[in-house]
């Protein structure tokens, strides 16, 4: 894949035919692909491709807390480490974690904590490592989505999955799932996450300007989009067990043939 050298913003974010620059309708999501169990060493893991975003998440835990003073005697702790690869962005990122990465780690951790039964795991930690290999807008939403999937893959008891998506405003129109360029050149960006066990919002940030009606539309479109993503998450979890079932069936068929 070859990118243009210039990192400039276009004047318009809609094409002549009313579609967005990448050819999507206003409420259309970018192509989305998820897979669980991709990292064998981890207790649970997931991989996601969302447009040009490519993200790995791995869960280790429950295990001992380091440093020890972070452990809580009455409950477990959830620690999320969101990191970006140096080559995942246009200008090489410095290898050490920056302020942005630390903030996003905290945001994701606060977002996912409500669905876990941490009181069942006193004195331990669940550690989720998120590595963004390629970034193109909406990585915090994509990371939240993939992290919750990895926790489910690890068999951590959860009230439900969490799904995140960004809604925003570009050239005065409300659109769903902003790409990198729309995020930078657009008017507003509103990432949100839904915890499905109570249908409430657990991540909400907003940058830009919007009136109350536009805000209502955003929340509505966000929920609709999240429902679509939720189905893909469920399919990813199911397909792991379907493939295990198939391999078991196959081996039992062949062994039956031997007898």
């Amino acid at each position, binding site marked *: 894949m070859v990118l243009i050298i210039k990192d400039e913003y276009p004047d318009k974010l809609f094409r002549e035919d009313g579609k967005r620059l990448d050819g999507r309708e206003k409420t259309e999501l970018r192509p989305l692909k998820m897979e669980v169990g991709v990292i*064998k060493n981890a207790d649970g893991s997931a991989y996601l491709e969302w447009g040009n975003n490519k993200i790995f998440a791995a869960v280790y835990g429950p295990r001992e807390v*380091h440093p020890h003073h972070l452990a809580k005697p009455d409950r477990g702790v959830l620690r999320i480490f969101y990191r970006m690869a*140096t080559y995942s962005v246009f200008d090489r990122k410095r290898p050490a974690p920056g302020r942005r990465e630390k903030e996003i780690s905290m945001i994701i951790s606060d977002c996912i904590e409500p669905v876990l039964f941490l009181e069942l795991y006193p004195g331990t930690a669940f550690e989720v490592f998120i590595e963004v290999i390629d970034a193109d807008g909406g990585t915090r939403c994509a990371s939240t989505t993939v992290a919750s999937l990895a926790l489910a893959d690890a068999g951590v008891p959860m009230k439900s999955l969490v799904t995140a998506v960004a809604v925003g405003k570009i050239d005065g129109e409300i659109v769903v799932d902003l790409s990198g360029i729309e995020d930078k050149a657009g008017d507003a960006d509103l990432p949100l996450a839904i915890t499905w066990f109570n249908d409430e919002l657990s991540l909400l940030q907003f940058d830009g300007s919007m009136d109350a009606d536009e805000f209502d539309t955003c929340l509505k479109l966000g929920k609709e989009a999240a429902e679509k993503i939720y189905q893909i998450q469920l399919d990813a979890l199911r397909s792991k067990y379907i493939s295990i079932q198939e391999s078991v069936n196959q081996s039992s068929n062949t062994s039956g043939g031997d007898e």
Partner: protein
Amino acid sequence: MMDVKRVISTIERKYIVNNLKKEERIDGRGLWEFREFQISTDMVASAEGSADVSLGESRIITGLKYDIGEPFPDLPDEGVCTIMAELLPLASPLFERGPPDEQSIELARVVDRGIRHADCVQTKKLCIKEKEAVYILFVDMYVINHGGNLIDCGGVSALATLISAHVPEGKYTENGIEWTGNYLMGEDIVNELPLVLTYGKIEDMVFLDPCLPEELVCDGRLSISVTEDKITSIQKSGSATFSMDEIQMLGKKSIEIGKELRNKLDLWQYKVKIE
């Protein structure tokens, strides 16, 4: 195959050693056999070159970014290529968070030296103007899963990344650097194809490409980088000692196996095509 994440019990160690004494490996390989390499390249859109290489269970994703900078004063007409490795805590319970530790620095250094001393990167072609502007290439390796022998996996990963690179070509003018619209690719960047081969040693037995359980019980390792007909870099690590005869034998073997592997991987196929 043993499912090992962190520790090896004494029984497992004995099992590995006894098998090696019979010239057998726990995963059914011969003593001088590599695990399967799987390579895909140029999948990271933001990078100017990338490779996703698996060697058995080990998996490393490498990307290339570039910058324009001043050359070193003692090499005024040569570009720079730096290699970094990060052992992500995501990849194994053995890896911890924090600044690079010995193990990740060793991985980056051994891969770097193999490439540097083999006349692999065409540093002279990476010069835009003498004493003023040269390309600085950053090859950054991220370990996604640790299944043993990250050095050999990283070596192929770094090389495939450099071959798949497409760096915008710049011309020096009075107004600074202007982009010609062309790209430096494949042979513009890479000349020789050095491969690094790592041998494990337990007691007096030596074998190629240790997998994770073998690596965990190894007394020591020897990594040898080879080009078509030359040895370009050697690293001994761990507490084992190697005899002169062993090292001579391994040197010859490395060139032989390296030649086979180079033909089999056919890395030039990963050069990108731009219409």
